[in-house]
């Protein structure tokens, strides 16, 4: 049922994209900007419809009902997966404000705990050590300027960047 739902969502997405593509201006009669993506979208829609039909046919009758149970939210693995995605998203949002160094240390610590680390000393040392190592390679070695954060975090970042 999960596979069916995913394919239906994909189909809906491409139907919307197909409708949206009619807003694309045609400048050239021979090969306007609209036609190529529209051809791809139409082909995807047709083929996904075929896929949905195949999946429905192969699905046992008792499984042809939607229920929230298909999301398996009680499964610890699914819960960890959603937490990991949420943590990653939070890191990306927080990065420009917290700066690279602090955000990465916290991100690493949280992710390590999520994956299975339990010793606080190991988490703390590895998160700080690895952040320093990656900083050394990318910032000092390759002259990449990471997000600096705001306020005093920005000043600390600038100081660290030009330390070497």
């Amino acid at each position, binding site marked *: 049922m999960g596979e069916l739902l995913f394919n239906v969502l994909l189909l809906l997405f491409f139907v919307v994209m197909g409708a949206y593509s009619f807003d*694309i201006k045609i400048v050239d009669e*021979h090969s306007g900007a609209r036609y190529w993506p529209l051809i791809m979208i139409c082909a995807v829609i047709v*083929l996904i419809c075929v896929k949905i039909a195949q999946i429905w046919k192969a699905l046992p009758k008792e499984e042809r009902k939607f229920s929230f149970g298909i999301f398996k939210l009680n499964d610890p693995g699914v819960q960890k997966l959603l937490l990991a995605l949420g943590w990653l998203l939070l890191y*990306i949002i927080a*990065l420009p404000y917290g700066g690279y160094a602090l955000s990465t240390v916290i991100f690493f610590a949280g992710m*390590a705990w999520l994956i*299975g680390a339990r010793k606080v000393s190991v988490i703390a040392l590895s998160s700080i050590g690895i952040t320093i190592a*990656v900083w050394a390679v*990318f910032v000092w070695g390759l002259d990449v300027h990471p997000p600096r954060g705001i306020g005093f975090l920005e000043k600390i970042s600038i100081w660290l960047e030009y330390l070497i």
Partner: protein
Amino acid sequence: MELLMTGIQVVFQLEVLLVIAMGVLLGVVFGALPGVSATMSIVLCISFTYSMNPVVAISFLAAVYCASITGGSITAILFKIPGTPSSAPTTLDGYPMAKRGEAGKALTLALLASGFGGLFSAVVMFMLTQPLMKLALRFSSPEQFAVCALGIGILSFVDSDRPLNTFVSALIGIWIATIGQDRFSSVARFTFGTVKLLDGIESLPFMIGMFAVVEILDNIRNPEDTKDMTKDAVEGKFKVTGIADFMKTKWTALRSAVIGTVVGIIPGAGATIASFMSYSVESKLNKSPETMGQGNPHGIVASETANNAATGGAMVPLLSMGIPGSNAAAMMLTALSIHGVQMGPLLLRSQPEYLSATFMSMILANIVMVVVSIYVAKVFAQVLKVPYYILGSLIFVLALTGTYAYQSNMFDLTVMFIAGAFGYFFKKYGFNISALILGMVLGGDMEYYFRRSLLMYGNVGSFFQRPIFTGIVVLFALVTVFQVFSMLRKRSNAKKQKTQQP
């Protein structure tokens, strides 16, 4: 022969040999770092060459170029993060091999294959620059469109159990390539009014999301899969293997070297397209196609031989016509122009020592690269002994930092996140990530060449007046018919077996 002797004379000097060794080391390390592509490696190293004389500078940059393509395979195999886009197919078989404790074997194969591919193309280019240029000149937009379509068409049959899924994946990839400004009319497509999407979706952040992030999410969801990798590493199963394993894949290597060299010659078709095409071909011709993507050594050899072979191929139009065969070659053009090297037909007449220096240094670099890369790989591989909760988080941090380092653009991180989240379900429900990536890589060029061909010739029928185009279409048709026939026969046999069972 005279050119060869000139090359030996200019390159076999202590200063040049030292810079080649340094270039190889830097190139491998840069290439291994995600977010640092071969192009970026050359850009970073250009500043080192300002005080060098032209021959030394050429040798250094050629070494960096060859080695950076190779370096991408190290993280592709150990962490499933392609260090360079051209190493993306290497992850498909390299990482499964590392997971079952064969990281050493996978790395050795990748490095030997890279060395072989680079050497093959350097030697071929040295001997056949002029005749091969005539072939490149005959490739126009219809032929380039046909080559892209052939690459996608062949891949669609890689997963013969689920060709529909693979084909849909490729089409989605081609559609993703249309996001952004249209190349012809500059009309914005699927940007939803945002400026950030005007340049389209960058392939490297997308690939890192689709490969590295999806893999870690998979391991978080199913943690028992990671225990074997760490266990085998702790037991010391990482061991560099000998050349015998590579010799078992010699025909794959030879075939891939030819594909990579030819693809490299075509302007605009670089190492990434070469590695994907070679992998696709290998998936069909391999004796055990069902094992491709599960840790088949031939997959690694196909990808790595082709991407390094493309380096020599890309130098042909660069040196002979001043047309770079890839982005990295374009950087080489800039760098060499600074040193007064005049690319084009006059190079052979006015500055033959530069032409011979380029090829001789590429030959030497590919030999040195194999030795240096093995030691760099051993250092990287020590990381395998680390527990997965550290390793997984490290891979995440490397992927994020590498994605940001690519263009110092926060939007790339967003792309990576969306690709990772979408890719997890995409893979879980049977779609083909490599087909999607190939569609994305080739889709932009496919559309460009197709529309350009229409502008030049007016209608599709006129394309068939070109013999090379017709030849490629016939080849595509034959491959398609053969594949459809094979699939139908396979299904018919499966049905017969089912009905015969009591």
